[in-house]
């Protein structure tokens, strides 16, 4: 089998998964969702690691370093920000005249 067919197949299937998984998200969660999807493409850090391991000249080192830093910023920042946004969607007991506690 042609070497391209496997990547193509998983690309197509992943696109289908992506389309299906989103269309169910309520509008109110769109922003956290955008942020969550944003963190996922931080997986590019894996690509940066692979080129870092293979770089062998100063230019290569530089590119790999920048890619590594960029990717890490994407992935770490993305998850932290998403979590901060979602943290706010907590249910509070609907206590009409709750005294401020602690």
């Amino acid at each position: 089998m042609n070497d391209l067919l496997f990547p193509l197949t998983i690309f197509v299937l992943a696109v289908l998964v992506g389309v299906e998984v989103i269309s169910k998200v309520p509008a109110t969660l769109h922003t956290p969702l955008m942020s969550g999807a944003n963190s996922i493409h931080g997986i590019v850090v894996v690509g940066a690691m692979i080129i870092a391991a293979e770089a062998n000249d100063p230019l290569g080192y530089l590119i790999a370093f920048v890619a590594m830093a960029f990717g890490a910023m994407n992935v770490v920042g993305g998850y932290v920000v998403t979590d901060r946004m979602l943290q706010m969607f907590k249910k509070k007991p609907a206590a009409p005249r709750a005294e401020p506690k602690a």
Partner: protein
Amino acid sequence: MDISSLVYLAQLGGAVCFVLGLRFMNSPATARNGNLLSAGGMAVAVFATLGSLIARDEGMSGAAWAIIIVGFGVGATAGLITGRTVPITAMPQLVSIFNAVGGGAAALVAVEDFITRTNAGSPVVSTTAFTVLDVVIGSVTFTGSILASAKLMGVISGKPIIFPWTRPLTFIVAAAVVAGTVLLMLNAGGAVPLEPAVAIIILGAILAAALMLGITMVLPIGGADMPVVISLLNAFTGTAVAMAGFVLESPVLIISGALVGASGAILTKLMADAMNRSIVNIMIGGFGGGEGTVGAAGGAGGGSVRSIGADDVAIQLAYASSVIVVPGYGLAVAQAQHAVRELAELLEERGVDVVYAIHPVAGRMPGHMNVLLAEANVPYPQLREMDEVNPEFDRCDVALVIGANDVTNPAARRPGSPVSGMPILNVDHAKSIVVIKRSMGRGYAGIDNELYANPKTGMLFADAKAGLAELIAAVKAL
């Protein structure tokens, strides 16, 4: 089972976690766990990759270790600090920055891979195609996202910026990208053999041209459309990462990238739909920088507008049995989310039933109002989505509109206006309506709102925060 299979399975597991994570984001109750699951999957995928690199026959060089550890440290610190400290209302611009670096990283990965391959004299047509796609999409995303962020931060004007040369420049640059791509493909196919150095310079030129494209693409788009643009660029980054996966033959990159590309595209469409605009329309630009224009005094329909004082409003609210609060962009601008919660709590203590009517595109990003009100600790069950709350306006005593405009405009129900067809909140069905805004200024769509001329409507002209403070004082004094 050999190590490479194990690593592969770990990465596949990570990708499955991403999908499940997104899935859990369906509902507020599970969303946070979804994000944690996704992060867990990411950690597994990253460590598995590290393990596989260490386990290679040739091991990892000191330089590689240094790059990975220091690079990760620097990036992670930057992400952590900005992620933790940036105020919640500045989230979209931050997401845009993360987008930029993600796209940049994807482009760099392809560049480095191309350099290595070309110097080794082994370019192939299919990989070259993916490399160029990755570099182009990644670079467009990089500059486009930075520009989008700058517009939202106000570093540069949020108004659409249109120079006479923007359009021609875009075409010239795009043509250069296509020409470069063709050359590189012919080289890889062996038809036009190029020196490695020349091929690399051509790729560099493509990269530079794509960076320029990102700028000319976003410049003409108004600041208010930026959330949609950011979402689109998010999908771009995903696609770039998938291309990087083709280049590096890494299934996990392909799956995750395609997942984000597809979900980002759907999300972008949903966002544009909710504003009753098409993505093409937005990308052409020139719209959405015009809020604040003052409408003809007296409002649409020639009816006159009734102004009302805070004390009167306070009495109406305090003796109502049910009040629906309709927050909009003005509430966010004025940062009045805490004030509105305080008012609502005061009213609830008096036995008034208070809920918030959340229009899907109130504010300037989807979910803007939810994020804002959640920050002020408004209990989630009090936030009602449009479809759920619309029938309740018929039974409610007072609709309190705070800094919202277009999402309440009855003109949307008739054809022929820029907001036609957008579903709106049925504020005009309430027994009585109070609107807090600074003036007769228009909203995002730049049209007058005939709601203000409705005999049931009283206008409380004030900044949202100041107006709410007055109301709180007045209710307490009752």
